[in-house]
């Protein structure tokens, strides 16, 4: 399966769940979305070997602002 994340493409040659994929990429499911085409996948979704998915990190941030 092909996985696009932050301008890079990763390849995996075995089926796995979204949760397992995120673990492989060392990403938190709390801050990550996985899309197959337009379809948003939940963590228990099973990915096939011929799938192509896009991983989106939802986390953004800047300098620690130290204010309200």
């Amino acid at each position, binding site marked *: 399966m092909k996985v696009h994340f932050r301008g890079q493409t990763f390849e995996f040659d075995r089926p796995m769940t979204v949760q397992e994929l995120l673990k492989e990429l060392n990403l938190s499911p709390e801050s990550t979305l996985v899309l197959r085409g337009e379809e948003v996948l939940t963590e228990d979704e099973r990915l096939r070997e011929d799938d192509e998915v896009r991983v989106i990190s939802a986390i953004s941030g800047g300098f620690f602002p*130290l204010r309200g």
Partner: protein
Amino acid sequence: MKRCLWCKGKPVIYMREHRLALCKACYPKWFLRMTERTIKEFRMLTPDDRILVAVSGGKDSLGLWFALTRLGYEADGLYVDLGIAADEYSQRSKEFAQQLAQRLQRPLHILSVAEEVGKPVPELARASERVPCSACGAVKRYLFNRFALENGYTAIATGHNLDDEAATLLGNVLRWQGEYLARQAPILPAKDGLVKRVKPFVRFTEKQVALFTILSGIPYIEQECPFSVGAASLFYKDLLNRIEERSPGTKWAFYSQFVHKVQPLLAGAISEPELRPCLRCGMPTTAEICVVCRMKTAAISDGRIATGE
């Protein structure tokens, strides 16, 4: 496999903290309902408010502008062009903001830091010897407030989410920053030349906001600001997410219990610094000359040095 709690369709998200799975049709409805509930709970907005949304081109601010409009609020956008040339970051961000303005058929005002303060943010930071994000934050707060005052807006809405607020809270607690803690609230009422500031997305995690924005068909800049690499806030967010994985609901409990139980005590005990008009521009400040006017001076001096004047 879990099913959508509302319609039994295929879910797009399972929110452990709510024990709630929702599908792509039901999730945006839930999200808008929660946004309205948050606005009401904290009495953020009234029907008479003229709202200015601080729009950056990212998922949070664009999602917020869209959500407020869907909820029936008349909200306009203000985009501040920071002049970050790396990867065409500012140019691309602005285009995403303009796309949504066109879709919403709402005005998008645009201000340029280079035109307003003398230099784009990266150069301004260097000239004033500040880290870029510090200079950026100060200039943005100043320009949003001044623009709102000059144009009759009564509320500035920002897209700060639960991850932003919990990370800020953690950082402030780790350093026991009493003054900052006393002011960390989902709503900062208007006072002494400062327009009311509200954060209607404080109930949502970044992932929830990203999902709403994506399902609403809103393109946004996914790339992070080039200056945010290695920022402490990202580290704190990661730590909090690791706790959340083990103990769902902790982020909200941490933040909401602070807001309800601790912040009011601190706000009553710690007197806020007195604000007075800046001697140069008249905007509220705790010093004689506000931070942005001081940065302007530094930018002019830096220009003289650069040109050998």
